């Protein structure tokens, strides 16, 4: 694939595949244009960021759980952010909280989850040789890498990284004199996010184009696996909402560095009256949350898609309500755009407007619940195989439901007055989004590890990892509901200043912190399993999970172009598991109805006559192979 200049990439893409000379190391592994390599790049980056992000949470949990504890032992790691008395600097505490949120939401659960699995699975499951544009895909990863570098560097600044919460509201984030984290740390945060947004847009554009334009013969939209539907809708969400965050970031950059007044107005800080007049901090919140809310679905939908696939495969049953799952995802994607102000209930908005957003927020619970019900119904009377991936997927359903129901409480604009910015919110989003998506990510890794690396991960370690993490996460976040209702505020370094927080729940906070440390330690079991299996794992077979989707029809480790010969055509949907009358308990998508007369339903026998026509169809092979 010779792509020396952008000119040649814009020319007819035939020219790219006429010859297959061996690519240099740089072209194959660094500036790779193969979707599978890029997926692995995203996966490793996501894992590294997850280690950093979770470590930050452990550090600030030590402060919260054990306020008197001397943290001298952290000095080798974070230096003078531990003062002489062994206490964590309150300024750095805020920075840790901010960076934990930023890293986990954007770098781990958006890039690490979407970036890995959309890249890896979309071409394989729709039956394409690669993404629509390998070049844009490569750019997408490297913009992400640049963004990561900037964000990483910000962690080591003397004035510290951004510290105004992951939402970086102005005026705090706009004024360097307001907090040291609003100096260079905030500048780097904004630059990093701008590059990150570009990266995600490039990726999303590729995903949408590939799903629409590069499906193999017979792969109509109604035969797509639910993973693809999920990734597709996620990419559309991102395409529409990320530019709005970019606009908010740009206007914030102008306010910070040029003195404009988009978000700033009548401020008196550090003994000085600032000249800015006419700005509105609420404008920033609107622009931010217009992305911010779809962002949580961008994080969640891929995990839900992965869960659909894993639960169906490991229950040996079709997913219950395939069309309802698609309709729910579409409903969620649509509603995601019109509920953003439920993050802003306490900004002083007209209560009637609050009711409108409340109404829409409660409605979005319906398709979400439909999905949860469908997962449970798929499990019901299934022939269940409890692989680690299956356990993590079921765990996702559990977290999704637990976290989801508290969303109904928070979506109520009246109740939110008490609960906004308390630990109740923290518990809610960690369960419904953080833990669920993380479990989706882990389930995906356990399930597709054989396809990615040709080896199996260790099952026993997977079980231990699951149980420790599952119990650990509930132990961490369930008590937070009580703390939140009691009124403990978010982002507070200590709780000694209010009568209603200083004498209660210290033991619960300590318990949470201990569980956080234990759960964090359990993740090293996963890391060890991952690395060990990469090198010494049992070699995988072509289709170890006996799954129906197309990625399992490639060789054990798919090479460039995924299928060595012709791309298979698709005749049926991907959920023919335990079909009555069938020889096996699964029938892959590329098995024609003519080959399974014993299990065909009456209308499927009619479809046999269409098979020749399907095989003769327009052939979206980027390699232009004859067929």
């Amino acid at each position: 694939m010779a792509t020396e200049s952008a000119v040649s990439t814009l020319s007819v893409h035939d020219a790219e595949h006429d010859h297959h000379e061996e690519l240099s190391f740089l072209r194959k592994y660094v500036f790779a244009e193969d979707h599978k390599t890029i997926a692995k790049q995203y996966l490793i980056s996501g894992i590294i960021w997850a280690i950093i992000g979770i470590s930050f949470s452990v550090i600030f949990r030590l402060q919260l759980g054990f306020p008197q504890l001397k943290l001298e032992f952290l000095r080798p790691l974070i230096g003078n952010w531990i003062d002489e008395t062994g206490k964590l600097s309150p300024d750095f505490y805020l920075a840790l909280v901010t960076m934990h949120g930023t890293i986990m939401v954007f770098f781990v659960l958006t890039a690490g989850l979407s970036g890995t699995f959309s890249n890896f699975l979309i071409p394989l499951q729709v039956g394409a040789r690669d993404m629509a544009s390998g070049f844009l895909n490569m750019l997408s990863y490297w913009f992400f890498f640049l963004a990561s570098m900037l964000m990483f560097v910000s962690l080591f600044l003397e004035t510290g990284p951004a510290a105004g919460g992951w939402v970086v509201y102005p005026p705090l984030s706009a004024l360097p004199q307001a907090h040291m984290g609003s100096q260079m740390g905030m500048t780097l945060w904004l630059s990093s996010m701008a590059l990150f947004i570009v990266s995600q847009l490039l990726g999303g554009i590729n995903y949408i184009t590939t799903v629409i334009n590069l499906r193999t013969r017979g792969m109509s939209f109604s035969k797509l696996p639910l993973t693809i539907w999920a990734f597709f809708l996620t990419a559309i969400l991102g395409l529409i909402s990320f530019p709005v965050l970019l606009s908010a970031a740009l206007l914030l950059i102008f306010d910070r560095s040029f003195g404009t007044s988009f978000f700033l107005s009548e401020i008196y800080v550090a003994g000085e009256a600032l000249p800015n007049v006419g700005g509105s901090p609420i404008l920033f919140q609107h622009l931010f949350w217009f992305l911010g809310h779809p962002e949580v679905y961008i994080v969640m939908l891929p995990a839900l898609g992965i869960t659909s696939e894993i639960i169906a495969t490991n229950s040996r049953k079709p997913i219950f309500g395939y069309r309802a799952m698609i309709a729910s995802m579409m409903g969620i994607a649509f509603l995601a755009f019109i509920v953003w102000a439920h993050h802003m209930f306490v900004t002083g908005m007209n209560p009637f407007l609050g009711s409108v957003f409340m109404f829409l927020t409660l409605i979005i619970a319906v398709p979400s619940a439909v999905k949860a019900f469908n997962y449970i119904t798929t499990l019901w009377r299934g022939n269940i195989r409890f692989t680690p991936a299956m356990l993590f997927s079921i765990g996702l359903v559990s977290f999704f439901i637990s976290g989801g129901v508290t969303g109904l409480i928070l979506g109520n604009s009246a109740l939110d007055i008490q609960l906004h910015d308390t630990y109740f919110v923290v518990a809610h989003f960690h369960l419904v989004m953080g833990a669920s998506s993380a479990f989706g990510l882990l389930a995906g890794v356990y399930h597709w590890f054989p396809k990615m690396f040709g080896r199996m991960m260790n099952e026993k370690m997977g079980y231990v990892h699951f149980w420790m993490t599952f119990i650990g996460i509930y132990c961490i976040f369930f008590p937070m509901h009580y703390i939140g209702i009691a009124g403990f505020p978010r982002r507070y370094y200590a709780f000694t200043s209010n009568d209603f927080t200083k004498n209660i729940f210290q033991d619960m906070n300590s318990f949470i912190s201990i569980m956080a440390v234990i759960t964090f330690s359990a993740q090293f079991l996963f890391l060890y399993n991952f690395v060990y299996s990469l090198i010494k794992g049992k070699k995988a077979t072509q289709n170890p999970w006996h799954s129906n989707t197309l990625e399992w029809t490639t060789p054990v480790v798919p090479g460039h172009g995924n299928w060595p010969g012709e791309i298979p055509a698709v005749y049926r949907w991907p959920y023919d598991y335990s079909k009555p009358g069938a020889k096996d308990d699964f029938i892959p998508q590329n098995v024609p109805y003519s080959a399974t007369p014993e299990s065909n339903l009456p209308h499927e026998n009619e479809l046999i006559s269409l098979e020749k026509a399907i095989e003769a169809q327009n052939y979206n092979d980027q390699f232009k192979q004859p067929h």
Partner: protein
Amino acid sequence: MKEETEEIKWLEEEPEETLSVNPKRFILWLFIVSILMLFASFTSAYLVRRAEGNWLDFVMPSVFAYSTGVLIVSSITMHWAYLAAKKDNFNALRIAITITFVLGMIFLYMQFQGWVELVRNDVYFVGNPAGSFIYVFTGMHAFHLISGLIVLVFALVAAFRLRIHAKSLDQIHIATVYWHFLDVLWLYLFFFLLYFH
């Protein structure tokens, strides 16, 4: 169940051909959607802020109207380039792209003159948001126009290398669509600013 079977039978008399629009052209349209969302966000912010009052009312420099005209003409020449490519008229193709590029540069120069005029009228980037926004709109559009100029350069180079011809129209098609989009975008911004001054 029987009704469902019959319904499916009716719908699937022929297998649906998997939709196949040219991927590269489709990718361009998705880029256009994302750029549109960026400007939709800016114009929403503008309207929200304007509704809050304390809004400086000023006259749009007339040079912006003339630059609009220049950009429209450049779209015409761009379209001429596309038609020339379709007919394998290589000379016309190269001339048309070059003229479009030059008109694009003239447009940028006139936008800059507009800024000079605004400063002369005491409307600055720093100050009342009404002024700030006009610089943001014109600046962000100009930034994207520069990217359009780069696309044109690539197309011009390809034209010289005879890579654009009647059987290879993707590149010139993409360049044309993108250029028209930049024109339409400017028209939207211009009339928006005129109406919501």
